[in-house]
């Protein structure tokens, strides 16, 4: 039940900045996601919050209390911050039973033995691992370990949970259910949670809000739906969504009052609601369209684009169609493939409401500010 404020955080490794000027304000009881590719600084940020590493600049506040301040050279020790952490490899003490593992943080606090016993049992029960208390970690499955790690975190009633990819070692199927369990647990306990992941689907489905990091800097902080519908820049557009958004390089042309997005072969009429892009005339712009927002048609129509089908892949309930327009490769996702086969020339129809236009130089989504 803690508000966590990070201001101007900088952490250097050697010459390069692992984390660069990160500002985040995490609300009470929020499930906040730090999302990004490996090396983006998300785990470093988490470790700074835990007090396990010392940043070179910046401050971290838990509510009204400062816990890290590089300027004042003040770093509260990790053991005094009362945060609980769940690690990717679960970090279960291998020589202790499950009971001892869960009890460990309480024993450190010199809590009364009977009290410990009661707390460990009730926590284990709430996670459905009560019958495992006498086991050694070696005898547990991946999913059980994950729950032991959760139990050890929960039992302390900490100020905040810090989770570092806690689901990434589970197999795909288990992960879907563990995700749902985690979300319910968070709702029940209402403890502020900071959750690090590189998996965008996990981030989208779990988070109240998501911060997307890249090379130590924050690219966008928003709710999942907003990030999906209105990516702030090219990085976010390419990172969120699977298969990723198609991004086509081109430029703006105006002819007889109509604005066109053009490449060597494509001449695409820009819908009127995107007319501001004409201000980028002469500059390079990028058209973005998600695979699921493209329709394939045998018949040419106004503003359709000709493409050749290279490959058709079934991915379960949908087909991923890889298309070629001159050098550009475009992926479309469609449910029914009956009318199409490889090497067919087809017409692509973009859903005009789902278009994005990015300034290539700055990477900015031209419509982010106006639509936010």
């Amino acid at each position, binding site marked *: 039940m803690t508000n966590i404020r990070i201001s101007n955080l900088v952490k250097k490794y050697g010459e390069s900045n692992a984390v660069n000027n990160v500002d985040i304000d995490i609300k009470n009881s929020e499930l906040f996601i730090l999302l990004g590719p490996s090396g983006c600084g998300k785990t470093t940020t988490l470790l700074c919050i835990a007090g396990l590493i010392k940043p070179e600049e910046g401050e971290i506040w838990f509510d009204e209390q400062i816990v890290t301040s590089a300027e004042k050279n003040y770093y509260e020790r990790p*053991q005094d911050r009362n945060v609980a952490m769940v690690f990717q490899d679960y*970090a279960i003490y291998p020589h202790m039973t499950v009971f001892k593992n869960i009890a*460990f943080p309480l024993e450190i*606090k010199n809590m009364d033995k009977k009290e410990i016993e009661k707390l460990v049992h009730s926590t284990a029960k709430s996670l459905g691992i009560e019958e495992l208390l006498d086991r050694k970690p070696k005898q547990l499955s991946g999913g059980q370990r994950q729950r032991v790690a959760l139990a050890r975190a929960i039992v302390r009633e900490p100020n905040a949970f810090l989770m570092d990819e806690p689901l990434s070692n589970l197999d795909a199927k288990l992960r879907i259910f563990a995700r749902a369990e985690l979300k319910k647990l968070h709702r029940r306990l209402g403890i502020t949670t900071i959750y690090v992941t590189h998996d965008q689907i996990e981030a989208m489905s779990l988070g109240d809000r998501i911060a997307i990091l890249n090379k130590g800097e924050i690219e966008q902080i928003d709710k999942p739906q907003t990030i999906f519908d209105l990516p702030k820049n090219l990085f976010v557009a390419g990172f969120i969504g699977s298969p990723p958004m198609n991004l086509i390089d081109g430029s703006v042309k105006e002819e007889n009052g109509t604005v066109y997005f053009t490449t060597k072969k494509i001449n695409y009429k820009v819908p009127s609601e995107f007319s501001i892009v004409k201000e980028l005339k002469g500059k390079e712009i990028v058209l973005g369209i998600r695979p699921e927002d493209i329709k394939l048609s045998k018949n040419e129509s106004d503003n359709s684009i000709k493409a050749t089908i290279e490959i058709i892949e079934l991915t379960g309930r949908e087909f991923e169609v890889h298309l070629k327009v001159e050098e550009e490769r475009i992926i479309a996702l469609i449910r029914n493939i009956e009318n199409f086969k490889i090497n067919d020339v087809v017409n692509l129809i973009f859903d005009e409401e789902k278009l994005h236009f990015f300034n290539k130089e700055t990477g900015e989504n031209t419509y982010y500010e106006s639509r936010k």
Partner: protein
Amino acid sequence: MILPLWSGIMSALKTQADLAQTLPFAPPTTLVFDGFIASYNELIGPLFNSILFTSIATILSCLLGSICGFVVAKLKFRGSNTVFLLLTIGIFLPYQSIIIPLFITIRNLGIYDSLWVMVLVHTIYGIPMTTLLFRSYYESIPESLFKAAKVDGAGIMTIYQRIILPLSPLPFVVAGVFQFTSIWNDYLFALTLTNINFEPASFALSNIAGSTETAWNNVMAGSFLYSLPVIIIFVLLGKYLMQGLMAGAVKG
């Protein structure tokens, strides 16, 4: 390796006359324990001395090595590379190059020819090797375990006692056996730093070999008695030693 050992034991059980007539690896024609009795009388005192200082020095150098290994592996600090360099030099430095100045220093300290000089020298000389062994094992313990313990509220001392030490039986066996045998086998420190007052077994054994010129049966029996503690340790700890050596964690 097996053959000399075998013929050694055979020789130890022969009389002097028998020894001169048969091949070294043939069994004795009459079984006698003269050799064992003679060498036992000469070796019992030195053997006791050796067991004493070897055990103490082994335990001390392992404990200190475990602590140093933990510090080097997990509490990264500036200059840890320098520490590592010093450790490496400490392992490979020839005894002989320091033994004489060491001898002078020990004399001046007035602990020449005593239990304590052997414990002191072997403990110090053993620390680099044990540190390196424990370090390589501790490096293989996942970092997240330390982080988790810290976040769970434990300080450095608690982490060492409650997490590190309970995870260390295998490296303790490997380092312990290694230290025990190399301290036990040491001849040069024994030669230089002790005399009749506190005579170690390795030195006493070479005296038997030197003094009773051709009494090979005594020498063989002495060698066998001398090897006995190491053999006992092997029989007791061999299984764990092999586990430790084969484990990914602690090597060579």
